[in-house]
């Protein structure tokens, strides 16, 4: 089992002090090397769920087991290290660092994982996503599609066990959305990496064999 959520709860505190429950997931699992998409309308808690799985936010209750490790039992620093080593995150808005070239953005993905720096691999990943000639360009010199490719390469940099992709095609033009999804799926397949993608796009969801609806697994 690659990912196993058990009785995970998460709520936020509103400005007036009230608790706003966001997640109440009895069970959610993803098999090793499995690829799936989680759909739901905007604001239903998809990103929050990814943040909890990535260890960016701590669950209020429950267990989040990734590759056998319950990250909720780790300290914050422990979760940071785990995330660096085991999880690749593809953001909706790419979140490339503007002062760094494409290659350096991929290398950044390696910087915070111990013993994982591998510049040839970074270059190889850029080659794989078709950006060999753009390795030295800063994000401002790249198209939207090219920036998303760099984000994909960065997420794969540390050979993670799991890729979390948060609406990766939201800022990509319609014509290239399928290409981006296929690129992510293909590289995950080649690297034996599990993939959990969230989207509100039915068109993107249609490219996956397993599609879950968040409202079906979330009791909130």
């Amino acid at each position, binding site marked *: 089992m690659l990912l196993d959520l058990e009785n995970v709860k998460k709520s936020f505190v509103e400005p007036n002090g009230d608790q706003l429950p966001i997640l109440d997931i009895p069970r959610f699992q993803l098999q090793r090397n499995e690829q799936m998409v989680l759909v739901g309308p905007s604001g239903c808690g998809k990103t929050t769920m990814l943040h909890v799985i990535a260890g*960016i936010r701590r669950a209020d209750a429950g267990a989040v087991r990734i590759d056998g490790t319950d990250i909720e039992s780790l300290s914050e620093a422990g979760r*940071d290290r785990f995330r*660096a*080593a085991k999880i690749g995150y593809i953001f909706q808005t790419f979140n490339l*660092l503007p002062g*760094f070239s494409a290659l350096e953005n991929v290398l950044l*993905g390696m910087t*915070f*994982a111990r013993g994982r720096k591998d510049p040839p691999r970074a270059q190889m990943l850029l080659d794989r996503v078709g950006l060999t000639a753009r390795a030295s360009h800063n994000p401002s010199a790249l198209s939207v599609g090219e920036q998303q490719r760099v984000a994909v390469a*960065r997420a794969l940099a540390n050979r993670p066990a799991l890729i979390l992709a948060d609406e990766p095609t939201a800022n990509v033009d319609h014509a290239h959305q399928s290409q981006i999804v296929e690129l992510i799926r293909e590289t995950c397949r080649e690297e034996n990496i599990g993939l959990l993608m969230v989207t509100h796009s039915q068109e993107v969801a249609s490219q996956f064999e397993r599609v879950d609806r968040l409202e079906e697994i979330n009791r909130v």
Partner: protein
Amino acid sequence: MSLFGIAWRSIRQRALASLLTALSMGLGVMLVVAVLSIHGVVSESFRSNASLGYNMIVGAKGGKLQLTLNTVYYLSQPVENIPYEYYLEFLTAEQRQREQADPGRIDLKRDGRFGRSVALAIPVCLGDYVEEFRLVGTTPAFLDKLRFGPEMDRKFEFAAGRNFQHKSAEHGYFEAVLGAVAARELGAGLGAELHPAHGDPEGHVHAQGFTVVGILKRSGTPNDRAVFVNMEGFYLMADHAKPVDEDAEHAHAHDQDPPHDHDQAPDQAHAPKPQDHDPAHDHDHDHGDDHAHGHDHGHDHAAAGPIPMNQREVTAVLIRTVDAAVTPGLQNTINEGREAQAVLPVLEIYNLFEVIVRPIQTVLLVLTAMICVVSGISILVSIYNSMSERRHEIAVIRALGAGRDTVMTIILLESVLLSLGGGIAGWLVAHALNALAGPLIAAQTGVAIGFWNIELSEALLIPAILLLAVLFGFFPALSAYRTDVGKSL
């Protein structure tokens, strides 16, 4: 990519703001280095000038510091004069009997009261000027015998010509030697004739001139800025002889060899008599001017011999005692008398430095340190203000697996890089300016200063800058530490 590399990239991303904050730190450090360099130059200048070749100055009663400043640095005005007869008390009988001027009633056959305690006694007569440069009437021993420098082993050397003689065949008593700076700024070379001004740079110019026979090499002492003349010639200038009673004035009827410094063989030349003594003539100089007595202005004594001893005064006597052990006793004895005072110039110079110069330097140093602190605050403000723009960037770095301490370290490194970069640039500029100003400083003070003249205290600069950087980088770093990743993404 290292954390340093990430910090450096962040700085480059905000190039203009980074440059300005580093510049402010650089300016602060430059000022600190400038103050430290000035401190070094002043200290070295005082130190080198405190090694004078003599350990005591005897002059008229009055301010000790004024006597020291006037005699050593040619600053301020002479307090008063002391009788020539008192100067003779520092000579042995043998030295006294070598005097060539008419002694009048003075007994030259006995030892001076202090003669056996003194290894060297050099009279100086001050008060006249050649443009802004002090005229020093003295004996050839001043330039021949005195040694200076920290080891007291440097002697005055000539860039051109020779020392003035007591009396030369070409110029009689009227020879002059110029200090290196005086020669350069007066534009005077060998053979030039200088006419001193009486009592003030703008004062009445003597008709009698002195011929330049020597130009000194730069010594780094105040003597670089002086004009040395034969004391006999000094006395023979108008208004420099003390008026005496008519009876005393006619007591010198015999021919004498001209006076000389006490280590030379007596000159055999006949000493002409001074002319036109007019005791009724009013003193027309300010009190504190020396040697302005009696004679009509412009009266030329070129043909006269040395003036009698009773018409002479000296501004000061430079003394080197035979032994350091006798110095306190000799000083006390002189000070207990009514005629003169004895000061230890090194002590006076040291006190001046400690009481006045060092506190000023300390204040300057504190001010410049405060400038560095202000620069550090500007770094704090610059980085802190950037945090609101960078919160998302920090959240991304956190999402990539960086811990809180890692992002805090990156921000601290930015502060350190800005501070160190600005500080090092400021240090380099300050020392480059030192190198550029070096020739001017050397000419004015005698202290050599170049790019690599580094004060020991500058070693504290780097640790101080690092401390400031960490101190002022802490608050922005803390802000980065507290970034809520989930909210900021």
